[in-house]
C-alpha cells in the first residue's frame, strides 16, 4: 500500500471515529441525565453537542500529530492533509446535525408519522387539523415562534409577534432575497 493511501485511510478513520465519539458522548450524557434525574437535558443538549463538535478537532490534531499513532505507524502527515481531515470530520458533524434537525423539526416527516400512527390513512382535513400528534398548525407555528424568540430573532409576547431584532431582520431580508433570486415561490 502506498504511503499516501495509508495516510488517507488513517485520516478517514480518525475523522469517522471522532464523529462516532461525538455522537456516543452526546447521547451518553443525555441518557445519563435522564436516568439520574439530576437535571433536564432540554436546553443543555444542543450546547453540549456544539461544545463537543468544537473541541474534538483538537483531540484529532493530537492523534494525527507527531507524538501519537501516526508516528507509531511511521506516517508523516503533512499539515494540509490534517486540515483536510478536520474538514471531513466537520462534514460528518453537519450530516449528523441535519439528520437531527430533520427528525425533530421535519414538517413532512411529521405528516408521515401522523399517518403511520393512524394506521396508514386519514381524511385530509383531519390530518391537517391534528398535525404533529394533535398540535395542529397552531402548535407548529407556536413552536417555531417560541424558538425564534429564544434565539433572539424576534420578540414574542402576549401573542404578539415582532418586531424583529437585528438578527431577525438580517435573516428575514437575506431569506427573502435568496428565495426571490432562486425563484423559490412555494416554500415552508
Amino acid at each position, binding site marked *: 500500500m502506498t504511503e499516501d493511501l495509508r495516510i488517507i485511510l488513517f485520516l478517514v478513520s480518525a475523522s469517522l471515529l471522532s464523529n462516532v465519539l461525538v455522537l456516543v458522548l452526546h447521547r451518553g450524557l443525555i441518557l445519563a441525565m435522564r436516568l439520574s434525574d439530576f437535571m433536564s437535558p432540554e436546553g443543555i443538549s444542543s450546547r453540549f453537542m456544539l461544545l463537543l463538535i468544537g473541541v474534538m478537532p483538537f483531540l484529532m490534531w493530537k492523534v494525527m500529530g507527531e507524538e501519537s499513532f501516526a508516528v507509531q505507524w511511521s506516517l508523516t502527515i503533512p499539515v494540509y492533509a490534517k486540515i483536510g481531515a478536520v474538514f471531513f470530520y466537520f462534514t460528518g458533524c453537519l*450530516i449528523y446535525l441535519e*439528520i*437531527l434537525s430533520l427528525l425533530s423539526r421535519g414538517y413532512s416527516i*411529521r405528516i408521515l408519522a401522523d399517518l403511520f400512527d393512524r394506521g396508514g390513512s386519514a381524511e385530509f382535513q383531519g390530518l391537517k387539523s391534528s398535525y404533529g400528534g394533535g*398540535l395542529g*398548525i397552531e402548535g407548529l407555528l407556536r413552536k417555531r415562534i417560541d424558538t425564534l424568540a429564544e434565539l433572539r430573532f*424576534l420578540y414574542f409576547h402576549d401573542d*404578539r409577534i415582532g418586531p424583529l431584532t437585528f438578527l431577525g431582520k438580517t435573516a428575514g431580508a437575506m*431569506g427573502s432575497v435568496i428565495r426571490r433570486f432562486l*425563484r423559490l415561490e412555494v416554500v415552508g
Partner: protein
Amino acid sequence: MYRIDLVAVFIGLAIFLGSHVVIWKRMPSNTPRIFLLAGLGIVGIGMSVMAGVILSGFSLLRLSFVVWVDLFFVILYMFIYAGIARSVSLTILSRLHEIEGEYLEFDSVISEYGESSRFEERIRLMEDSGFLESTNGKVALTPKGTFLARGATFLSWILGTRLQG
C-alpha cells in the same frame, strides 16, 4: 497547505453554485430538487479533482484534501439551501421583514398560514415523490412512505430525539 489546491476547490465550488443558480433561474419549480442539487455537488467535486490534477499533477493525498474541503462546503450549502427552500421559521421572519418594524397578531399568522396552500403543497410533493396517495379527500401511505415513517421513528429512538414537527 498548497494554495493551488484551494484554487481547485474554488473552481469546483464555482461550477457547482453557478450551475445551480442557472438551472434554478431558468427552470423554476416548486419542488426543492435536493437530489438534483446533490448531483450538481458531485459534478462540482469532480471538476475540483480535475482542476487539481491539471494544476498540481496527480497526488492522491492532495486530491483527497481537495475532495474533503469541497465536500464540506457542498454539504454546508445543501444544509443552508434546505432551510431556505423549506423553513417555516424563515417564512415567518420574511413575513415580518415585509411589514418593517411592526408586529403581527399570532391569530392572524395562524389564519394566514392555514389559508395558504403550504400544507397541501407538502402533501402534493410527497405524493409526487411516491410516499403518499390521495383520493377523494383521503390520504394514505404507500409502502415507500410506510418504510420512511418507520425508519424515521426508529432513527429518532436511536438518536434520542422526538418527531415533533
